[in-house]
């Protein structure tokens, strides 16, 4: 093992007094380093929350937390440790543990105290803690995919067109420019909303339209003059010669003769371009000769002398490294003409975007849901402006003292700004407290920045490293050791990528140079890296077969981990297909969308058919699917059945008697077997849980028999679980929802235990495998054509960040428009990112790396042609080319030739088709017709308050003659409390008072009922009783007492009903007592057990103030002892 060449850097990284920026290339063991620093800091804080660690994913956060806990546990249990870095970790953990004891944190148990989070969850926490400052108001649902909401915002924007909103003019202009294609503009604006953190600050809500225009103008101006300045600096030593030549040329061409070299303002661009023409050709090559048309006529004397002078100068200039590139760059610099169509489009957009962003906020409001970008934005808002920062320590209850950020190269601008805000005042603090400084550690690897498409900007990493934050300077530490890969691989990577990466870092162009690694593991296998190129007919197929052979050989070798890494899933699919044919077990998680699984297609179709009778396609497809498998002829019969094809719902047609007559025997049997299943499913709609409903139908149809393979059954389960989720989220059977989710779920391809892993390069980041194969390096991604809008962040040489955007002005590709400039920039950035992506892939390998590609040979030289500049092979072409094995075309083995199979109708044979479900207990549980809506709530409420009033009266020691004012007020409140207001309240109160008056009238039966002088008197008396069926029942008796005079026990039930129009009291009372006899009987039987008194039941009609004795319930007096 080689020594640790970067031991000094590693120990500096753990120094708690310094802030550091660590560049940690692949395999350099950065997680360990992060953990060491975290442990070190633990021993210096009062509360563990004061150390904030930010990771890129939740998984990384969990892992980091887990490893910290493990270190603490190991220190506690004093488990043995041997390697040097383990010993370092152990020592740090021991110190952290004693801090834990001292403060009583119980870190190993209470893991919620670790402030280790993703940026998203940290921001969400801030917004939760500051609902007003963040303007969220409280917890908001944060969705990963809010594209439907973006679309809604755009549609809301469209509605402004008819409302004479000022933005309508801009929108109209844009729509017209894009051929009034609303869908297309919508798609585009949706994608802009998804990335709005990039433009919001510049064309955001707070900018007036004029400001936006001058802002954009200024940005373009700076951009041009930055480049001109850089160029003029390079040319400064030659300025005299250049000027002389330029003057000579201008004189000969009859143009104004310049007195000096052009300046560096944007308007000087044209002069520079003239100067350029003297040095390089139109195509951008160094000139070999110069002629009359450049102002250098043939001839002797001065002409000849000048030509010689020119030649000398050119020889010198060609020596300058980047000069040619800079000169050619002049051609693509944008020239803004204010009345240009393209410029006008930019202005329209800049006026439109703020309104669009505002519409999105409204949509968020309506749906009470936001995206992560909004959370980050709101968190920033909550943290306050620099001149009025929020007292964060107060809000969090702790001061963030130390911050660690992992994967900083994938940082986007909002994260950068967040860090800026969190570290405000740190510089001052550190000056005052050098012994207890607040510190920052950022860890990243510019070479592994591969999330540009998501807004990650590697330039921010470089900038943070240079500038630090708020006066906290970062000590730059570069790790060099690679603990992962064998020396052979490390050496190869060093060689190939030193050439592939740009020569120097460049913050403003988001470029990083390569920094070589030193292998810690010795070389083992030779060569560790194999490069294979295939050419000729069916080169691609050969390449795939080769990979298959490699994998088969690896599998024989033993238990090594093997991965095939592809740039995209389409690069992996041919490999999968081949592995299937060869029977090599593989695991390809998250590769194919679940929506493509045939069983899921059928299930989704079943859902559609059950959801809509109008969906003729779904119904026909249902009949063609394997569970039914009607032939074309039988389908034809169904299609014309019924009275009004094609509008007769297929479901109705299926039940027509003549249809069954017309079908073939087989078809009739098949249709009959699924008919009852479908009928039952239709009856059960909305009566079963969503999943159970669809699953039962699927099972009934014979779904499991129709699955082509066991893996498909897993797909079915995944789909049905999605339905569970739809139900849990309240989405129901919503096809848009389902489609969106299906795209994000993956099919079961391969088996979890498969020895070979197939992954995309992006997914492979952070993993390692003994052997890695990266196929199809020559394949360029599908060209993204001409996007109608382009935008980009831009940093000026002065470090000012800004934003540019342009719409496709339909101009020629070489015209100097802003659009073309941005297009070129984007392509260059993509190329840089492709290089980094390959670096990530190559550094996954521990022992062996295999790279393959298909190439074409140059007809004359017979040498391979350089691949397209957009493919992964391009950056490492030189190295690859030198060492590749060029495989000559050979006939393909027969197994690799695809056979075009005929497409028969696949269906269950009749014998295994659905058996019609056993005749179910068809009798629906019929409860009968529902009662009319009891909206006459008012009477119910009034009745309740009357009960209450009577109870209050009965509890009074002496019964008053009329209700007092306090009572009246109370009853009014009671009515209000039940929800009565306004006129309804007054009516109800009048009713209550009327009832009370009736009851209290002198000599009325009411006074006797309410008399407090009775024995064993109860109001609203709760009893529990065992009824005649033996079940336990709770009852409440309105009034119950023993009359001293008669010794009778009275059971009285209050009723608020009145006689019908013209009905006599007797008739009314008889009718009512018949109605309530059952209830009274239960009461009577209950109280009868309480004593020997004879029980008498009565109804008290509160609205009439009359008592009615229900004689029919009288029982003979009980003899003593009888019960």
């Amino acid at each position, binding site marked *: 093992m080689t020594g640790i060449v970067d031991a000094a850097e590693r120990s500096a990284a753990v120094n708690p007094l310094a802030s550091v920026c660590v560049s940690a290339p692949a395999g350099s063991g950065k997680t360990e380093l992060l953990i060491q620093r975290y442990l070190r800091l633990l021993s210096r804080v009062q509360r563990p929350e004061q150390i904030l660690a930010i990771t890129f994913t939740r998984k990384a956060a969990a892992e980091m937390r887990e490893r910290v806990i493990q270190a603490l546990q190991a220190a506690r249990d004093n488990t043995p440790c041997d390697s040097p870095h383990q010993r370092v970790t152990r020592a740090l953990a021991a110190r952290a543990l004693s801090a834990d004891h001292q403060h009583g944190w119980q870190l190993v148990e209470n893991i919620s105290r670790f402030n280790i989070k993703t940026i998203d969850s940290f921001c969400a926490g801030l917004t939760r803690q500051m*609902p007003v400052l963040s303007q969220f108001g409280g917890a908001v649902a944060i969705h990963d995919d809010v594209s439907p909401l973006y679309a809604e915002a755009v549609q809301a924007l469209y509605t402004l067109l008819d409302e004479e909103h000022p933005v309508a003019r801009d929108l109209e202009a844009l729509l017209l420019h894009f051929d009034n294609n609303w869908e297309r503009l919508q798609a585009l604006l949706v994608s802009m909303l998804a990335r709005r953190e990039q433009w919001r600050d510049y064309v955001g809500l707070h900018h007036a339209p004029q400001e936006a225009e001058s802002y954009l103008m200024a940005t373009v101006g700076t951009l041009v003059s930055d480049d001109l300045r850089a160029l003029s600096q390079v040319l400064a030593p030659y300025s005299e010669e250049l000027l002389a030549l330029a003057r000579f040329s201008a004189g000969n061409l009859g143009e104004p003769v310049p007195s000096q070299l052009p300046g560096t303002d944007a308007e000087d661009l044209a002069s520079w371009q003239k100067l350029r023409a003297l040095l390089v050709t139109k195509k951008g090559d160094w000139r070999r000769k110069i002629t009359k048309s450049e102002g250098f006529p043939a001839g002797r004397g001065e002409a000849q002398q000048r030509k010689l002078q020119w030649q000398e100068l050119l020889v010198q200039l060609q020596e300058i490294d980047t000069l040619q590139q800079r000169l050619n760059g002049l051609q693509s610099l944008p020239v803004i003409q204010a009345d240009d169509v393209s410029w006008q489009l930019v202005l329209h957009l800049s006026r439109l975007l703020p309104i669009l962003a505002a519409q999105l906020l409204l949509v968020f409001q309506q749906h009470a849901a936001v995206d992560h970008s909004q959370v980050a934005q709101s968190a920033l808002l909550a943290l306050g402006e620099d001149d009025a920062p929020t007292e964060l320590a107060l809000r969090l209850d702790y001061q963030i003292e130390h911050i660690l950020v992992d994967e900083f190269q994938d940082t986007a601008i909002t994260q950068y700004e967040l860090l800026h805000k969190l570290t405000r005042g740190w510089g001052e603090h550190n000056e005052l407290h050098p012994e207890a400084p607040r510190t920052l550690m950022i860890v990243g690897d510019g070479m592994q920045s591969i999330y540009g498409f998501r807004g990650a900007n590697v330039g921010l990493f470089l900038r943070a490293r240079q500038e630090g934050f708020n006066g906290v300077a970062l000590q730059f530490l570069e790790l060099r050791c690679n603990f992962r890969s064998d020396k052979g691989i490390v050496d190869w990577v060093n060689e190939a990528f030193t050439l592939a990466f740009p020569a120097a870092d460049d913050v403003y162009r988001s470029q990083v140079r390569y920094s070589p690694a030193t292998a810690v593991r010795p070389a083992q296998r030779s060569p560790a890296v194999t490069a294979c190129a295939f050419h000729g007919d069916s080169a691609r197929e050969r390449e795939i077969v080769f990979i298959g052979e490699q994998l088969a050989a690896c599998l024989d070798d033993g238990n090594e981990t093997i991965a095939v890494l592809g740039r995209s899933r389409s690069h992996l699919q041919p490999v999968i297909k081949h592995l299937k044919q060869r029977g090599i077990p593989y695991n390809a998680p998250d590769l194919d969308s679940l929506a493509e699984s045939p069983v899921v297609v059928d299930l989704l179709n079943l859902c559609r058919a059950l959801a809509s009778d109008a969906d003729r396609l779904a119904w026909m497809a249902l009949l063609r699917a394997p569970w039914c498998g009607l032939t074309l002829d039988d389908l034809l019969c169904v299609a014309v059945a019924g009275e009004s094809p094609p509008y007769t719902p297929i479901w109705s047609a299926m039940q027509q008697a003549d249809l069954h007559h017309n079908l073939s025997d087989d078809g009739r049997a098949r249709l009959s077997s699924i008919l009852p299943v479908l009928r039952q499913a239709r009856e059960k709609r909305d009566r079963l849980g969503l999943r159970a409903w669809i699953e039962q139908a699927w099972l009934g149809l014979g779904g499991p028999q*129709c699955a082509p393979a066991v893996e498909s059954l897993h797909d079915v389960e995944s789909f049905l679980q999605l339905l569970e989720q739809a139900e849990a989220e309240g989405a129901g059977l919503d096809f848009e929802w389902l489609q969106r989710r299906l795209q994000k779920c993956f099919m079961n391809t391969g088996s979890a235990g498969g020895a070979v892993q197939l992954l995309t390069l992006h997914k492979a980041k952070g993993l390692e495998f003994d052997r890695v194969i990266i196929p199809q390096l020559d394949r360029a991604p599908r060209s993204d054509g001409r996007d109608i809008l382009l935008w980009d962040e831009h940093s000026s040489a002065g470090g000012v960040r800004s934003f540019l955007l342009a719409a496709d002005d339909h101009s020629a590709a070489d015209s100097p428009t802003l659009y073309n400039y941005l297009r070129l920039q984007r392509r260059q950035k993509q190329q840089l990112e492709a290089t980094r992506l390959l670096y990530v892939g190559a550094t996954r390998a521990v022992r062996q790396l295999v790279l393959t590609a298909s190439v074409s040979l140059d007809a004359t030289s017979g040498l391979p042609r350089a691949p397209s500049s957009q493919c992964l092979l391009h950056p490492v072409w030189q190295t690859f080319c030198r060492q590749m094995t060029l495989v000559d075309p050979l006939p393909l083995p027969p197994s690799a030739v695809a056979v075009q199979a005929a497409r028969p109708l696949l269906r269950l044979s009749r014998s295994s088709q659905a058996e019609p479900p056993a005749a179910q207990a068809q009798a629906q549980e019929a409860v009968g017709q529902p009662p009319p809506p009891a909206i006459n709530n008012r009477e119910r409420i009034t009745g309740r308050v009357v009960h209450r009033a009577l109870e209050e009266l009965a509890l009074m020691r002496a019964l008053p003659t009329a209700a007092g004012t306090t009572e009246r007020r109370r009853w009014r409140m009671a009515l209000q409390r039940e929800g009565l207001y306004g006129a*309804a309240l007054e009516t109800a109160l009048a009713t209550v008072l009327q009832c009370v008056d009736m009851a209290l009238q002198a000599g009325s039966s009411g006074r006797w009922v309410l008399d407090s002088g009775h024995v064993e008197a109860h109001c609203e008396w709760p009893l*529990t009783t065992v009824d005649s069926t033996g079940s336990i029942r709770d009852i409440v008796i309105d009034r119950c007492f023993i009359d001293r005079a008669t010794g009778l026990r009275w059971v009285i039930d209050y009723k608020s009903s009145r006689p019908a129009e013209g009905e006599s009291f007797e008739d009314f009372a008889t009718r009512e007592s018949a109605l309530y006899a059952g209830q009274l009987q239960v009461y009577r039987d209950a109280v009868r*057990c309480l004593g020997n008194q004879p029980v008498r039941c009565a109804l008290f009609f509160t609205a009439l103030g009359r008592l009615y004795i229900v004689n029919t319930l009288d029982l003979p007096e009980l003899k003593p002892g009888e019960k």
Partner: protein
Amino acid sequence: MAHSLYDIRPLETLIEQGYTLLTPNFRLARRIKAEWDAGQAAAGARVWQAISVLPLEAWLQQQWEHAVRANAVPPMTPLSTHQSLEVWRQVISEQQHAAADFQLLRPAAAAELAAQARDTLLRWCLDPQSRQLRPLFEMDADCSAFLRWLTAFEQRLAECHQCTAIDCLARLPQLDAVLPSSRVVLVEIEQLTPLQEAALQALCADIRHTRAEHRGEQRLLHPFADKRAELQAVARWAAGLHRDAPHTTIGIVLSDMANDRVALEYLLRREFDCLGRNYASLPVNFSTGISLDQAPLVRDALAALAMGLRQTTLTAVEKLLGSRFLDLPDAQSAVAQRLVRRLYAQGRADLVVSDLRDQAMAIQWGEATGTTLGRRLDALLAMPVLRRKALPSVWASRFCDMLGIWGWPGTQPLDSLEFQQLTRWQDTLAEFAAFDAVSKSLSLSEALALLRDCCRRQVSQPLTADSTVQVLGPLEAAGLSFDQLWVCGMQGGGWPASANPNPFIPIALQRQQLMPHASPEREWAFSDALLQQYARANRVFHASYSREVDGVPEPPSALLRDFTLHEMSDPPAIPDGWLERHCRRSVEAVPDDRATPLGLDSESAVRGGSGLLEDQSQCPFRAFARHRLQVEPLGTISVALPPGERGALLHEALNMLWGELGNSESLLALDDTAQARIVENAARAAIASIPRRQQRRLGRAYWRLEQQRIIALLDEWLGVERQRSAFVVAGRECEMSLELGQLHVRLRLDRIDQLSDGSHVIIDYKSGQCSVQDWMGHRPAQPQLLLYSMVEPDTLAGLAFASIRPRECRFVGLGRAGIAPGIRDDLDRVVDSAMAVSGWPQLQRYWENTLQRLAHEFVTGYAPVDPVTAASCTWCGLQALCRIGEAAAPAPESRA
């Protein structure tokens, strides 16, 4: 008889002595009462005084009522939680308007937090307006905003003599000796808030505490690979236990009830075999269910009410038509289906209700005119009151009238669950009506939103008899005793939960006062106490956790210190039954690519002219499906005019344009102004040909822009036409027909130009991509023009697509030299060598043969799934029927 869920023996003497029992929740109160009653009944009693057992808070509330009656406190109207939230919401939005410096995304969430903050402060007997506390609150923006809202809130309550439930309790500590003093037992109450403490001290002479005897015997910890495996294992365990020992009481606690309930319910059904026939007899009680607004009966009622609004959606209409609870007898009729398909064809996701009504009234098919849906909507829209604002109680009765129009809840009998939901709905409507207390007059949409909110807060939970298996939330299980309790989801990340202090109370104050969720320490203590209680009260306590949640590794909760690790195997991911049936399957592969030939009688049923042959050429199955099965995908939704209609509009404009111009001579005679006029007229006329109603659907701006687009395009196109040699437009939109063998094809030619020598060029307008390659080969991609070429083959000079695309206007065609730029005459270079033709007559013959063959294929029922290129499938949309994706799947292992 099930084992007891709570052992009340220690309480019996106290009950007999007349103590009131106070519990932490209703569930335990009900349980104690049930146990007592069962004991009484078992002892032979027939009737007894109901025992006094209720949750502490409810009892305190009762005491306040007594105090009101005793005139010890002034009467107030206590608001329900939901009502007071509404007041908070109003107050916050008023404050927001007044301050105008911030706009909250979710004022409703702020209202909840504010209400919670005020309650907590009251429970802790703290006054934020006091001299000590006020400065603390004013230190930060969120708390001081809360103080402002609080002042406004309390002022508002005072004005209306209203109060919140906690306000009532807050009165109690001052009532020392006003009410007769009580004797109470606190059952399983672990902690009291300062307010409860003070109130009890004031009201009670005798306070006792009890908690269940320790009955815990065993604690087991089960790890699982993931959440699904965990839930599956619980379900399987519960079912097994229930089968083996039916009287064992089983409690299942879900940490994340909201997310896991549906999944667990399904899995329990699967394990208890209650998915199909026994669906209604699952012996499990859930402490919660779906919210009422999701109950189908209520969901459809709300949807039907929403039809009173101005706008609806296509999906909503389809759902109404499918509802069992609305009286729409013809919902499944052909005419209703025609309506749905027409709506899809219009491609709008959003519909204006009045427009929908008009269409639903006017739609015709066969004998039938109009649908019940239309008549219902008509009746609904005829209710003038819908546009008038009113108080909730008024809306409540209007809603009943509206539902009456829809015939809700339908004509079929309801099952018992639906019946419960109906009752629930009526209660909710009454609750909604009670919002008069806090609401102003509402518009229909506001009233509906409030009603929906009321429904959302109601939980529809099937009322079932007490079962031995109960599924509960963590707090609901507190205090209950089971023989076996299983708590799921005990990952370290959730137990204890992270601190979640209320943002409106200074956090240091919360921590210092030990308020709920204030700090990690407090959460730890709380969870620990809860777990101790579980462990004490249940005989066997199982805890389980997932090693991974959403792909992120999780440790077990550190609270599970003394548990015995018990690894269970992860249950199979798919049910054995499926596997078994899958293994028994027998699949046959039947060649089926030919249908009965087209009968002469059914010829009239075959639609489509030239499109039919294009389909046949692209993929014979597609032609069969579209033209014989008459299957089309439902139209796709677009934000503007669907592409097909846009194309038709352009065709119409060109038709108008050439109707005016007539020939190249008059075109060339036009100056700029004249051309501008004539082009504008054509565009205008084309748009005018679209029915008004349809125009309204897209808004004025769309048509204004579309007109401008057409004008620009026509201008550009005329630039192309000007380069041609002389011609006369001899025919526009000509309808013709052609016999191709047995097939009678109707054609509609966009344009026929006559050249100066009397020969003809047939022109087809195209706004999509086109190329002469589309005419080549055995199966041409776009055979229409070839078909047209057969109409008058002898005078044919050329065939051309007029490719009318912005910035790409040109002719694309074949013919004699000199007709127009873009119409090529170098046949030999263009024509596919495989076709082996040379010269125009041979080419025409080749085409004729090709078309005859395609027509013959169609007529004879030749219909294999055989797309000519992969691109043929891109816009076809019939993949579910043709099953082309199936070939990508592994071939079946067994074939009959």
